[in-house]
């Protein structure tokens, strides 16, 4: 089973050369730590920066330079700052190549829910609705089940949606799944996890085609 860093590490393999990437809050933010160093990638944060670098050294942090998770950051040579409208022009206009975000639920038709639990928790959608409505390449980073063991990989989302029919790939602590033709397709198992365990943790229709390789991370 993967921990959060393991999920981030596996997702990092999906990041290709010359990609502009938007990383959501939580596990997605960790992805930056694991991207191959021999490829060129630029990270966009919707609060208005392109070309994010690592966290600053202690004492060099600047309150005016943060990412969408409100964390202090640095920038790389060639970085730029811009306003929120232009930032979402990048997102809505499909200039960002890859969007990685977290989810509470994903359904086999590609629906995603990640912003609200009615009556209990309302954080808000932030930029997620804009991202999932426009991005053509969306990877979801999430736990396969909730704390009580119930599947979050569903036939149909039970929570209020963030976007419809938009998720194409999911990396969980147990597996890599493709979302296609109203089904989940098992692509890879997490180290030490059996197909059976994944099947048991998946409420939606899961297609297992032939031998399923273990992730190489």
């Amino acid at each position, binding site marked *: 089973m993967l921990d959060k860093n393991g999920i981030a590490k596996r997702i990092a393999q999906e990041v290709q050369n010359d990609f502009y990437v938007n990383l959501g809050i939580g596990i997605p933010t960790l992805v930056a730590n694991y991207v191959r160093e021999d490829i060129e990638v630029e990270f966009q944060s919707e*609060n208005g920066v392109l070309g994010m670098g690592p966290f600053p050294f202690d004492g060099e942090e600047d*309150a*005016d*330079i943060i990412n969408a998770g*409100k964390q202090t950051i640095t920038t790389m040579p060639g970085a730029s700052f*811009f*306003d929120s*409208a232009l930032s979402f022009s990048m997102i809505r206009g499909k200039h960002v190549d890859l969007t990685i975000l977290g989810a509470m639920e994903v359904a086999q038709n590609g629906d995603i829910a990640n912003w609200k639990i009615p009556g209990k928790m309302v954080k808000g959608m932030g*930029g997620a609705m804009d991202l999932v409505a426009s991005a053509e390449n969306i990877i979801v980073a999430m736990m396969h089940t909730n704390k009580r063991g119930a599947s979050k990989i569903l036939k149909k989302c039970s929570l209020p949606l963030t976007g419809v029919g938009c998720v194409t790939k999911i990396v969980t602590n147990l597996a890599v799944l493709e979302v296609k033709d109203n089904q989940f397709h098992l692509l890879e198992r997490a180290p030490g996890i059996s197909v059976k365990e994944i099947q048991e943790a998946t409420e939606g229709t899961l297609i297992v085609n032939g031998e399923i390789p273990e992730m190489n991370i």
Partner: protein
Amino acid sequence: MINKKVNNVRDALKGVKDGMTFMLGGFGLCGIPEKAIAELVKLDVRNVTCISNNAGVDDFGLGLLLKNKQIKKMISSYVGENEEFERQMLSGELEVELTPQGTLAEKCRAAQAGFPAFYTPAGYGTEVAKGKETREFDGKMYVLETAFKADFAFIKAWKGDAAGNLVFKGTARNFNPNMCGAATITVVEVEELVPVGELDPNNIHIPGIFVQRIFEGKNYEKRIEQRTVIQKS
């Protein structure tokens, strides 16, 4: 040069009244109009509607107005950092309209630019689209969103001049430029008011025409929400 300079935050907020709608720049606590918020607490204006991406934290930013129960309604995209907010919202004391972040930015920009409405893909098929017109263009579905209407916009810039020209720093820019001129009166606080002519005309982020009042604030706290640093080894 048309002079927008006022002497202090008190003069800058003249005309602020109960029941008004305010826009406030900032993302989290980054780039928020600290001085205007402090003055709003002092003036104790009530039943106001605030349009701002976030709602501050319990003891800073818009959290100060929330704690003081001055806010009737919040229009935001993300409010996950404020416990008092969540309490007031879940108890029904506070009206909340959650709006996708890009839509929020564009509703400000539409007001600034004189567009009454625009179609955006964000929120289609979700709660956000409820009661709104949806429409297909080139095989994809979009939601019709309308421009915000606000009485005051409270903006924080890095540098500015008496003509109202503004320059922002880093990600403290965020919603601030999009809110300038998007309300009846745009009030700007800057860290440094420079002589007119000092700012490079090529690098002015917001021209003074979008600004009604400008003043220099002192001793900005600029609190960091998530200090993430690497230890030098």
